[in-house]
């Protein structure tokens, strides 16, 4: 068993750093899963800490300070505490659905992390249908929320669950339309392919290499709003934090189950930001047209040395944290939309705009 590990370590450092090129299949599966799970538990903790601190500073206060150096271990402390909480299952609840709901909501988030590229070669899978897989899996977590809402036999959770269902479905459509527009522009559904395409994409009729965010600024805006609504983050958090809904579908959950729902929310935030980074902000590319140091391959993006890879991962995480900052900023600045305004905004504003955007890009693709 030891030389297998030795090989892995050696191969990891020796010739190419990409974790995709391993000799034995079994080892690569283990490493990939470890990579995805590791990211899924670490990055949301950083995201949550960022949210606490930024929200604090914007509200003229300091945010967590005592737990760990500069309050960094606040969410770790939350996790440890939730493990110790008494696990309460309401008597009138449907026990198995109630217990399964947090899992159903959490696992899709983990699965999508497999397909997200965090750096040159630093991704678990390069699926041909990466984007399609990601969007399909993300709509499964809606099921978890509906299960949670229905199973807690608490009228408030029921209303919260139904509202969440309605809202997520309403905002699923503009999300997918905006994503398709990028796929049309890039010509491929594989996320790594899209990043690659952006590295060589020239504005039609000009010679400027530019990311997809500039020609499709409308698509980016729609995707951003739809993503926030998907995660029911304020100003779209009607189903959760509302005076008469107490805590929406999460009212009855305590202990580790509630922690899983929280992790879903933070994980979802990271996940959607990562998707936006890949689709619109050129993945791990520093600046449009500027190849990463020490990397060759198309657009200077691939099989780079250790420094290139680390730099790529750093840039992607930086962009993710920037988008998380934007989400927190919106949460701090705006009140909550009313339920019917929410729905009307989705169907009457976002969907037509997304279709318009798709049409524009289609025409541009054909003409140029």
């Amino acid at each position, binding site marked *: 068993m030891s030389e297998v590990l030795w090989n892995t370590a050696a191969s990891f450092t020796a010739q190419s750093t990409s974790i995709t090129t391993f000799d034995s299949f079994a080892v690569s599966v283990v490493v990939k899963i470890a990579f995805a799970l590791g990211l899924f538990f670490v990055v949301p903790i950083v995201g949550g800490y960022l949210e606490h601190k930024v929200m*604090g500073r914007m509200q003229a206060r300091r945010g967590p300070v005592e737990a760990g150096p500069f309050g960094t271990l*606040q969410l770790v*402390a939350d996790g440890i*505490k939730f493990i110790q*909480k008494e696990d309460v299952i309401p008597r009138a609840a449907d026990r198995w659905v109630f217990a399964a709901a947090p899992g159903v909501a959490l696992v899709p988030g983990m699965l999508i992390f497999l397909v997200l590229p965090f750096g040159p070669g630093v991704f678990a899978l390069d699926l041909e249908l990466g984007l399609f897989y990601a969007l399909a899996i993300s709509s499964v977590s809606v099921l978890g929320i509906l299960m949670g809402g229905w199973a807690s036999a608490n009228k408030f959770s029921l209303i919260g669950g139904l509202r969440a269902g309605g809202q997520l479905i309403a905002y699923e459509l503009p999300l997918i339309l905006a994503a398709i527009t990028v796929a049309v522009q890039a010509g491929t559904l594989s996320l790594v392919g899209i990043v690659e395409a952006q590295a060589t994409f020239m504005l039609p009729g000009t010679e400027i290499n530019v990311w997809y965010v500039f020609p499709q600024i409308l698509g980016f805006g729609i995707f951003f709003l739809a993503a926030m609504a998907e995660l029911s983050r304020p100003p779209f958090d009607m189903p959760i934090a509302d005076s008469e809904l107490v*805590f929406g579908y999460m*009212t009855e959950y305590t*202990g580790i189950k509630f922690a899983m729902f929280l992790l879903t929310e933070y994980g979802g935030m990271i996940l959607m930001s990562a998707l936006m980074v890949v689709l619109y902000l050129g993945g791990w590319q520093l600046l449009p047209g500027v190849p990463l140091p020490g990397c060759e391959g198309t657009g200077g993006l691939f099989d780079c040395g250790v420094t290139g890879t680390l730099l790529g991962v750093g840039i992607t995480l930086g962009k993710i944290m920037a988008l998380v900052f934007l989400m927190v900023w919106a949460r701090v600045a705006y009140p909550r939309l009313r339920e019917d305004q929410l729905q009307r905004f989705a169907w009457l504003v976002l969907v037509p705009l997304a279709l318009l955007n798709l049409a524009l890009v289609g025409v541009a693709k054909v003409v140029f």
Partner: protein
Amino acid sequence: MGVMDQVELPKPVKYVFNWGRKYSLWCFNFGLACCAIEFIAASTSRHDFIRHGVIPFAHGPRQADLLVVSGTLTDKMAPAVKRLYEEMPEPKYVISFGSCANCGGPYWDSYSVTKGVDQIIPVDVYVPGCPPRPEALLDGIIALQDMIQKESLKERIAGRRLDPITLGADEPLPSDSSPALPSGGRAP
């Protein structure tokens, strides 16, 4: 939780678990009267008890593990406090904030005020004042955190009366139970 209260944890594990419970007190503010305003002041930017890990966004009693009873508890409100205390999952702590919650305070002789929250639910820390300063609440929270850091979960749960407390419809609440009388005018 099932394991926690059965077995005495080894020293380092108990330290980490206590540390976790100490710095993540999701707080449910049972704001009744004027002390609720001082509680909100303690949660806003000048005193900001989120620094100590006390997060005030616990919406319902289910997610909370620190219940701060701030204000006058009246007989009409007592069943609600009893029920909400029961709703909270087990390692739960209660801070009685202000004279009214301690033992009736300025309304000690009123016919409709319960003389102190500790007649209804067990209280861990009493913060005196009417209303106490927000810093006094922070001092109470630090005192509670000291206690949590040193306590053992096993004894705490064992000590707690676990038979379910059901409030029969007919059994009236001890609404006018006179306060625990200090020795009054006579020598102790």
